[in-house]
């Protein structure tokens, strides 16, 4: 039993490595350089929300998120823990670099409304 174990283990290792090399896509050059400057706008008026459901960006992008709401509250980007007070009918802006990859909700506390989700993809 023991003498066959290394054979099966080697076979398993070859399978895993071979599959990885065969399936993993090659790295391609970025179409545009990292550190793009992107802006996203949200409006919340009489309970009606406009703005992107998902903000899809790359790690390293410079982001501006603007909100104009008829409700006051705290604009909170979870995960990045960026919080800014939003006064009614006065635009508020979050400016930051998308350093952390992941999925982060943008919420307006007060009305407790999820405005959208920021998806930061790792740099290739």
């Amino acid at each position, binding site marked *: *039993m023991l003498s066959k174990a290394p054979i099966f283990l080697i076979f398993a290792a070859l*399978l*895993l490595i071979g599959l990885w090399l065969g399936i993993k896509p090659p790295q391609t050059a970025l179409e545009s350089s990292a550190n793009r400057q992107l802006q996203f706008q949200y409006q919340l008026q009489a309970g009606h929300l406009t703005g992107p459901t998902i903000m899809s960006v790359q790690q390293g992008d410079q982001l501006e998120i603007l909100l104009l709401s008829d409700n006051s509250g705290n604009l909170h980007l979870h*995960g990045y823990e960026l919080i800014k007070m939003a006064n009614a009918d006065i635009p508020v802006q979050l400016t930051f670099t998308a350093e952390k*990859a992941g*999925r982060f*909700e943008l919420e307006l506390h007060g009305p407790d409304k999820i405005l959208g989700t920021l998806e930061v993809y790792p740099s290739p």
Partner: protein
Amino acid sequence: MFKLLFVLLLSLPGTAVAHSFAQPYQLPIPYWMYIYSAIAALGLSFIIVGWFASTQHSQGHSATLPFGQAAWVNALRKFRLVQILQILSVCSLLLCIVSGLIGSADAYRNFNMTFFWLVFALGFSYATAALGNGYAVLNPWLLLTGFCTALVSGFGQGRLQYPSRLAYWPAVVFYMAFIWLELLGNTRPFSLSVMLLTYTVLNFVGVWLIGTRDWFRYCEFFAVFMRLLAKMAPIDYRPDVSGEKRLRLRWPFMGLLDEPAEHFSLLVFMLFMLSSTAFDGLRETVVWFNIFWRDPTGLFTLLLGEHPIYTYGWSRPWYLAYETLWLIASPFLYLGAYWLFIWLGKCLTRSPLSTYHLGMRFGFSLLPIVLVYHITHYYTLLLSQGLKIRALISDPFGWGWDLFGTAYTLRMPVIPDMGLVWQSQVWLILLGHVVSVWLAHIIALQTFPNRRQATLSQLPMLLLMMLFTAAGLWILAQPLQGR
């Protein structure tokens, strides 16, 4: 009955689909990783089949090493570690209840949400799978009712004989209610406290009615849950032949081979552990959202009278009811698939054993898949929010206290590198799959009269496990809803 259920669901206040506490920060796994994992799982499964088909196997997996009398264990007993932990357990429950009732309404600033949902429900569960069934001695409800039994003579003896036909069904129902509250109940600190208070009262009533032994064996669902997880741990805590409790070391996951599932309801409980995690992942995806709100089949348009997207304002409670029905149905869908493949194995081998008997024997072999899927889905929450318990201990009510000088530590969530998260998800799922296939083969060798029949029986099981693993991976790879 069906209409009554809908009316009840619609009448529950504050149960609209809403932002829940502590969303995971991970992105869907890249599609190529999903393909890699699925093919690797299939390939490794066949290697395991080949291994079992070509080699003789001993039954040495049941070997255990007692260590209950080791010097370091005796030293811990002298420090009364168990008693200290028991006091902490009861105090934690009481603090969870009190902090929700009088503390901050902000879920992130109140002790109870992070402690209960993350430290206990996730962290303690994973610790149980690694270190054994500590919950058997640290269960706060067991301790509280035990205290009551010590004060009130005969309290824990029970007044009714527990009907054996009920088996683990009460635990299944309580577990479903718990998961519903977790996923769809939009719990907040106050409602969590009410929930814990209600469950505490339920435990007292249950113990008074049917006695401590039967209540905590069949009905208290955390006890059932932790007992199942502990079967995978390398540390076993159980009485030996002399009746005294003993600590033993064993190979990880080998506890799953000790005995078959005792009752059909326990199998359903275990499958709900898997299906509820899959459901949680699925309901966050664009695919799930579109099935109802975009209604490609036209079915919901027919039921609601107009296209669902135009009914968003008033039909959200119906969406909640729809999700609730799928949550309750989910373990039975998994059960249907499981039973079908068990039956196929019986047919292939022409075994005289009943499908039921075979189903009970192989049930626990799915637990490694259950565990790894749960971990891959939730473990990052322990890092991003669970670690904040260090700060919350100093300010449990969110009043600006700093009792232990830690209130301002770990304010930022720990978000691991996304590549690391994806890799860990893939390799954990592969590990769980391989262990499940391996265990199923060992059970097959114990069940069938010869190696040929045992191997034949595993071909449908292999397909079933591939189905469960691939489904889990597919869910992890799906694009997610935005809001």
